[in-house]
C-alpha cells in the first residue's frame, strides 16, 4: 500500500479531530482560545444569555488591545472602549478565565502576547475572533480567525466545525538583500499571487529564507497570510522555535517539555508530502516594498511606480486601479518614492515586536522626524515596552521626534479612535491599506518598520537602503 507523505497541516489537523462530520469536515478541538476587548465580553455575555458555562476556561485567555487608548495612562479611551474593558474584566473573572490587564506584563496585542507568554505552541490549534490569528502559525501552530458566532461556539464547546482547506506551499529561497525584511517578503508574495491567491488554502511557508529567519520575522510572515486570502499560515517548527519558546511563562517545563519537544519534532511536512499548489519566490530579487493602493496586492518595490491605468486593457482592472489611485491621491505613473507623508505608524500585530522596534530605532538613531510629520511607536505588548525601555529605545525614539505610546492595536484599525485625519497620508507597519482603515479617507502605505522609520525622517516615502549605516 502506498503511504503518501503528510503535510504539517494534515498532522496537526488529524490530532485535533474529535469527530468526522462529513468527508472533508471535522469537529476539531481548540487548544487555545484568545479573547480581546472588542469581541470577548460580547461572546461571554452571549453564552450567559443562553445559560451555558464556558466549556474550558483554563484554555481561554484574554487581554484588552483593540479599543483601549495608547496614550499614557490610557487617557482618551472612549466611553464604549471603557465599557468593553470593564465587560472583559467582569465576564472573564466570572468565568474563571485568565486576563492580562493593562499595565501588567502579559497585556498587549493578542497575537503578540500568545507567542510571548508561551501560550502559542507548535502543533497547537489556536483561534481568536480576529483574522490575524494566522500570526501564531509562525511557531508551527494551526491558528485562524473566527467570527462572533464561532467564538460563542468555541466558548460553549471548546470545539469548532471546520472544512479541511487545500494546501499551498510557498518557498522563499535565497538570502535577503540589504534593507529587506520579513514584511517585504510577504508583501512581495501578496503582490505576486494577489489578495485572493490563498483563498481556501492553508499556506505553509518554507525555503531557506524561512529557515534562516528569526521567529519574530516568521510571525510577521504568517500574520499577512489573511491578506493573500489564506485564513491559516504556518511554518514548520525547528530548533529556533524551541529555543524561542523554552522558559516562557506558560511553556511546558522539565519532563513535560521533553515530551512536548519530541512530539513537535514529528510535525514538519514529510519530504514526499504533496501540496495542492506550490509557489517559489526568489528572495534575492526582492527589494523593500511599499503599497500604493487600497489592497495589500497593490504593492511595488520602493523604486517602483504608481501604475498607469491607461496602459491596462481590461476595463474592470483599469477601473479598479483608477479607483485606488483616486482614493490615494496619487498620480498615475509617478514614482512611489518621494511621496510626501503626514503620519508614520510603527506598531500592530504585524510589526510591533522588539526586533521591529530595534530595526526602526537603528534608522531613527541620531536623526529627526521631518517637520510636519507625526510619527508614533506603539509597542506590541507591555513586556516589549519594558524591554525596549530597558534598552533605551523609548528615549532614542523620543529624541528623534517620535511619540512613544502604550501597547495595543492603536492606529492599525483605529477602533480606539486613534485615526489618521481625512486625506492625510500614512506610512504604516500594519497589515491593511483598505479604504478608511486608519480613519475615514485616510491614505495608508504599508511598509516595514525600517522603511517606515526612514520615511518619517525623510518626510516622504523613502528607500531605507540609502539610510542604512
Amino acid at each position: 500500500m502506498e503511504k503518501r507523505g503528510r503535510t504539517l497541516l494534515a498532522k496537526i489537523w488529524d490530532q485535533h479531530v474529535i469527530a468526522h462530520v462529513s468527508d472533508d469536515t471535522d469537529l476539531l478541538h481548540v487548544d487555545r482560545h484568545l479573547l480581546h476587548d472588542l469581541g470577548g465580553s460580547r461572546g461571554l455575555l452571549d453564552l450567559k444569555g443562553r445559560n451555558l458555562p464556558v466549556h474550558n476556561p483554563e484554555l481561554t485567555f484574554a487581554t484588552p488591545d483593540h479599543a483601549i487608548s495608547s496614550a499614557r495612562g490610557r487617557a482618551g479611551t472612549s466611553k464604549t472602549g471603557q465599557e468593553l474593558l470593564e465587560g472583559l474584566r467582569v465576564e472573564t473573572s466570572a468565568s474563571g478565565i485568565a486576563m492580562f490587564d493593562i499595565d501588567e506584563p502579559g497585556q498587549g496585542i493578542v497575537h503578540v502576547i500568545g507567542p510571548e507568554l508561551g501560550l502559542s505552541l507548535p502543533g497547537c490549534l489556536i483561534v481568536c475572533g480576529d483574522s490575524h490569528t494566522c500570526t501564531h502559525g509562525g511557531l508551527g501552530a494551526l491558528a485562524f480567525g473566527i467570527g462572533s458566532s464561532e467564538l460563542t461556539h468555541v466558548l460553549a464547546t471548546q470545539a469548532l466545525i471546520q472544512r479541511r482547506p487545500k494546501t499551498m506551499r510557498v518557498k522563499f529561497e535565497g538570502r535577503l538583500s540589504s534593507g529587506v525584511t520579513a514584511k517585504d517578503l510577504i508583501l512581495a508574495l501578496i503582490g505576486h499571487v494577489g489578495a485572493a491567491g490563498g483563498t481556501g488554502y492553508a499556506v505553509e511557508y518554507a525555503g531557506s529564507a524561512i529557515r534562516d529567519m528569526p521567529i519574530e520575522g516568521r510571525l510577521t510572515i504568517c500574520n499577512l497570510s489573511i491578506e493573500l486570502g489564506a485564513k491559516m499560515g504556518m511554518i514548520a517548527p525547528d530548533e529556533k522555535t524551541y529555543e524561542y519558546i523554552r522558559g516562557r511563562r506558560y511553556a511546558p517545563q522539565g519532563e513535560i517539555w521533553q515530551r512536548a519537544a519530541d512530539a513537535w519534532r514529528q510535525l514538519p511536512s514529510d519530504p514526499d508530502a504533496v501540496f495542492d499548489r506550490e509557489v517559489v519566490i526568489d528572495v534575492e530579487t526582492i527589494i523593500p516594498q511599499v503599497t500604493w493602493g487600497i489592497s495589500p496586492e497593490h504593492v511595488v518595490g520602493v523604486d517602483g511606480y504608481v501604475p498607469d491605468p491607461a496602459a491596462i486593457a481590461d476595463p474592470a482592472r483599469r477601473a479598479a486601479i483608477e479607483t485606488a489611485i483616486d482614493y490615494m491621491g496619487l498620480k498615475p505613473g509617478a514614482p512611489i518614492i518621494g511621496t510626501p507623508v503626514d503620519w508614520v505608524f510603527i506598531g500592530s500585530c504585524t510589526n510591533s515586536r522588539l526586533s521591529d522596534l530595534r530595526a526602526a530605532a537603528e534608522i531613527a538613531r541620531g536623526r529627526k522626524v521631518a517637520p510636519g510629520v507625526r510619527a508614533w511607536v506603539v509597542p506590541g505588548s507591555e513586556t516589549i515596552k519594558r524591554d525596549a525601555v530597558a534598552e533605551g529605545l523609548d528615549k532614542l525614539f523620543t529624541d528623534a521626534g517620535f511619540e512613544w505610546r502604550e501597547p495595543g492595536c492603536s492606529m492599525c484599525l483605529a477602533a480606539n479612535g486613534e485615526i489618521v485625519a481625512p486625506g492625510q497620508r500614512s506610512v504604516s507597519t500594519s497589515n491593511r491599506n483598505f479604504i478608511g482603515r486608519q480613519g475615514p479617507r485616510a491614505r495608508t502605505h504599508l511598509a516595514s518598520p525600517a522603511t517606515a522609520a526612514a520615511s518619517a525622517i525623510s518626510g516622504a516615502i523613502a528607500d531605507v537602503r540609502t539610510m542604512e549605516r
Partner: protein
Amino acid sequence: MPKPFTRLSAIAAPIMRSNIDTDVVIRIERLVGTSVRGTLGKWAFGSLRYLPDGSENPEFILNREPYRQAEILITGPNFGCGSSREGAVWSLQELGIRAIIGSGFGDIFFANCFQNGILPIVVDKAIVDGLAAEVESTQGAGRVSVDLEEQTITSPSGQRHSFEIDPRRRAGLLKGLDEVALTLQRDAEICAFQAADRMARPWIHFAGKSA
C-alpha cells in the same frame, strides 16, 4: 438562531469592484460596543453610501431605485476579504440582504454568512458577470431567483445556473439550525477526546498550572 433560507426571488444589486473588504462593508467604530446589533444597517457600505458631508451618494447603487430594495448582492471577486468582523454580515442582514452571489469570498466572511442565515453562492465569474449585466439591462427591475433546495440561480430572463454548496451548510440554512446546540449534543465525544488528550499532550491542558 438563524432564520431558515429556502428560496428567494428578489431585486439584486451588482457591486462588482474586486476585493471589497469587510472594513468597507462596516467601519470598525460602528462595532465598538456591547449592543451594536440592530444599529448597523444604516452604516453598511458607509464609505460608499455617504458623501463626506453625511448625505447620500446618489451614484452608489444601493441609494438608487429599485436597488434600495435589494435582497441579493451580486459581487466582484474576493468580496468580504479582510477582517473577521461578523458585524459585516450583521450590517448586510440589517440592510435586508439574504443572499450574495460572487466568484469567491473571504473565507471567514463566507463562514460568518451561514451563521446568520445569509446564503453566499460561489459560481464562475462568467455567470456572475452575466447576471450583473442582465440585471443592469433591466435597470434592476429584473428579479433574480435563488433556490437552495434545488441549488439553482435563475436570471431575470430565465437562465438557470446550478451551484455547489457544502451539504452540511445547506441543511443548516434550510432548517435554520443552531450549531452550538448541535455540537453540545456531542459533548460526551468532546469530553472523551479531552480525557485522552490530557494524557497525550499535557502541555496543552495544564499550561496555567506551570505559570
